[in-house]
């Protein structure tokens, strides 16, 4: 039995409701000093909420907390910071228009004169950067930095405030393996220095890689605490979902036929004049899944947007299902859909759904103009209702309530709704972006199976994901992109984290050199 004071943080019977949602149910949690502690759980399990309570952002309805043995009851983040707690939020809390320096100083200034605070901070940060290898351009405007760097700014912010306990909410959700690894080394260094770290993630691989202990949440309650060394992915997964799950979806041989997507010399220059996509060529055949791997921000998003008609190419052309499109041709997402292309967008919150809408309204997004949903000038409410109801049951979207606001479905179920909508139209071509981002593994398993099925049903599937194991799991061929151009292509057999990691850094291993994209 460890003495209370040896715990960096200790929670007892923490309870929190949001209106009708019981986000946290009398949570008990104790975290030994100087350890990395993982918190896992399905979407909506209450992880973020719990962390926000510790950070003084929300207030627990009941229960008590201790930090380093001291009674602790923060009324706001300021008090949490004073108590030596720092937090890196799932969605970054930065002022985009400010410089890195200004962001870090904000709220931790000494003295009312800005100049002094800034120069003082500059010195201190130089030191921190050295200690933890956290180097960031202090005078760069945050909005213009890559997510990886922005996250470092968040961590620096916490450390600058002298955090002894660091909370990270889904830190790797937006990172690439390289960035993630860098993060982990940083965390490692921090642990050596005696910092206690709590990390929320959906990726079991990471949990096993870096944590000392893991706590599992389900539907607002703490279901289990385990020592990382004594557990494995399968067990954790089962604890999270409450049933057995297959982490590796088994898939048979692909039986590719004629190419349905043919891209040749496609380029895209954005409004800022930057060349995002550099004349790439590849194709996807009916009945195969082609994955596009790459560090996020290397053009894969643009490729999806081009193919789905959200943006138009600057040069080059693409042939979708027999229709050739180039810079001259007029087209948009609607006309693209009409030629048998389905698109599961990378970000369901930004693109896939409309939080205000009821499920049934969100269900016809992008297809609302089809005759099946309209009677003359008026909408056919009945048809819409039925269509949505059926799909929700068929795709096991929970709750299967067609008039529930989309915002109130969990991430995973929101995602299922989107996938159902796109696949129900039975397109020949399926564009899939980040199908499982922020989705718990219960849902992941299901979604992966569906993608395989549609491949076997003879659809051409283009998969974009920053989750390497997802790509390796699903894709028959993998195209790696770097800085908007194709680095190379590997077959499923050749694919392994290490090779892909190198290629994502624009280094092509010998044994790959000979195969060529877009055959």
């Amino acid at each position, binding site marked *: 039995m460890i003495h209370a004071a040896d715990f960096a943080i200790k929670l007892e019977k923490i309870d929190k409701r949001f*209106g*009708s949602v*019981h986000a946290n149910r009398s949570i008990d949690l104790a975290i030994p000093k100087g350890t990395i502690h993982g918190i896992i759980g399905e979407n909506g399990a209450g992880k973020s909420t719990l962390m926000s309570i510790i950070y003084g952002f929300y207030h627990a309805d009941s229960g008590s907390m201790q930090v380093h043995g001291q009674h602790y009851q923060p009324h706001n983040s300021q008090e949490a910071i004073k108590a030596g707690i720092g937090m890196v939020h799932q969605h970054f809390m930065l002022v985009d228009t400010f410089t890195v320096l200004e962001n870090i100083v904000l709220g931790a200034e000494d003295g009312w004169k800005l100049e002094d605070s800034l120069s003082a901070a500059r010195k201190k940060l130089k030191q921190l950067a050295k200690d933890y290898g956290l180097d960031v351009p202090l005078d760069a405007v945050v909005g213009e930095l890559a997510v990886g760097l922005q996250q470092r700014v968040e961590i620096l912010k916490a450390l600058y405030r002298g955090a002894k306990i660091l909370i990270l909410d889904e830190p790797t959700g937006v990172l690439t393996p390289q960035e993630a690894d860098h993060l982990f080394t940083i965390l490692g260094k921090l642990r050596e220095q005696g910092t206690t770290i709590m990390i929320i993630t959906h990726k079991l691989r990471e949990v096993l890689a870096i944590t000392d202990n893991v706590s599992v949440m389900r539907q*607002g309650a703490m279901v289990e605490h385990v020592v990382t060394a004594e557990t494995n992915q399968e067990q954790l997964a089962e604890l999270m979902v409450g049933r057995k799950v297959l982490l590796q979806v088994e898939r048979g041989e692909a039986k590719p036929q004629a190419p349905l997507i043919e891209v040749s010399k496609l380029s895209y220059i954005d409004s800022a004049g930057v060349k995002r996509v550099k004349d790439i060529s590849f194709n996807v055949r009916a009945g195969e899944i082609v994955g596009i791997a790459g560090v996020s921000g290397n053009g894969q998003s643009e490729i999806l947007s081009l193919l789905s008609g959200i943006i138009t190419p600057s040069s080059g052309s693409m042939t979708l299902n027999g229709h050739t499109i180039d810079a001259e041709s007029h087209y948009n997402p*609607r006309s693209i859909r009409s030629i048998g292309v389905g698109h599961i967008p990378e970000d369901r919150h930004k*693109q896939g759904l*409309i939080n205000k809408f009821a499920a049934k309204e969100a269900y*016809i997004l*992008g297809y609302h103009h089809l005759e099946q*949903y309209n009677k003359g000038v008026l909408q056919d409410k009945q048809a819409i209702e039925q269509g949505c109801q059926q799909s929700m049951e068929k795709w096991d979207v929970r709750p299967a309530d067609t008039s529930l606001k989309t915002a109130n479905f969990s991430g995973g179920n929101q995602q299922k709704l989107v996938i159902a909508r796109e696949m129900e139209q039975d397109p020949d071509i399926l564009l899939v972006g980040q199908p499982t981002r922020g989705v718990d593994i219960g849902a992941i398993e299901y979604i992966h199976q569906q993608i395989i099925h549609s491949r076997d049903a003879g659809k051409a599937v283009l998969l974009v994901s920053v989750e390497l194991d997802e790509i390796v799991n699903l894709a028959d061929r993998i195209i790696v992109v770097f800085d908007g151009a194709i680095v190379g292509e590997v077959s499923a057999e050749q694919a392994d984290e290490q090779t892909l990691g190198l290629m994502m850094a624009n280094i092509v291993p010998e044994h790959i050199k000979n195969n060529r994209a877009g055959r």
Partner: protein
Amino acid sequence: MSQAQVPAWVSVALLPAINVFAAFLVSALLFMYIDISPIDAIKVMWTGAFGYAEGIGYTLYYTTGFIFTGLAVAIAFHAGLFNIGGEGQAYIGGLGVGLVCLTLGEFAPWYVVFPVAIVVGGLFGAAWAFIPAYLQAKRGSHIVITTIMFNFIAASLMAYLLVDILKPETTMATESRVFAASSWLPKMHEMLSWVGVSMSASPLNLSFIFALLCCLLLWLFIWHTRWGYEIRSVGSNPSAATYAGISYVKIVIIAMLISGMLAGFFGLNVLQGELHQIKLNFVEGFGFTGIAVALMGRNHPLGVLLASLLFGFLYQGGAELSFEYGVDRNIVVVLQGLVILFSGALEHMFKPSLERTYLKLFAKKASPSEGVA
């Protein structure tokens, strides 16, 4: 999410009622301060607005105006746009109506002029909304500011036209010549007399019916057509709309054109219906009040109708007040301000306490449902 347990009517009907009541309460204090018994005042206002045919006529006449400007703001809201330009659009739309009456009206009867005026008035209003819409859509200029600016520009333009162009030599008032009587919209009391019902004269005219029609059509448009769907999509999540192949530019412009058109109809009621000539400042703030109307009406055509009725009551009742008491007309302006404050800006103030009390009183059994996750 706590709404989930409170029935809709509480927030849709009870809350607004309470807000309006609060507004009246505060203004009651003001009335007492300037030595007018609020009770008498409200009596006078009520009987003045609803007590007799002519009063009702005036009330509904004002209501008509508010419906147009209120609907205009509402439709823009659904596209996520804040159209403060109702004032200017109504002004310019009125110019369109006026020009039709001044030209076509010379030789054509009202039933020919009316449809043409509807089209032209609508077009003029829409045209005035187009530029801000275009700038918002294409260049991201904030529509609130641009529309404010366009109100002022419209005022200058109209002043110029009325002073230097439309004003006949003979008159000194800044107003156009009177339309030919044949082009005037039939008044409600005239129309009723055709069917044998007699009602005392009031400015209430045919355009009231047209306004009601607009409510109905707009309701259908917003919630029962794919275009309404597209507008609401853009309004609540532009990037998702783009993903769905809905053109942001197109929708923003369409929504604003409709908005401007509705505001443009304002002139039908006031000019072709009542004043029968274009006058300086004939919009008189109805465009601005339209924002409050839309807000109180929760951007729903039916709500807008009811809110318009309330403001119609305030206007007519207020006139009655100053007529009977000779009290300063501006006290009514204060009352309007308070209504906008409480039911617009402070609409959420009583919400939490109201819901809590409601739950205490009626909803013992309603146990909080589990998380949806």
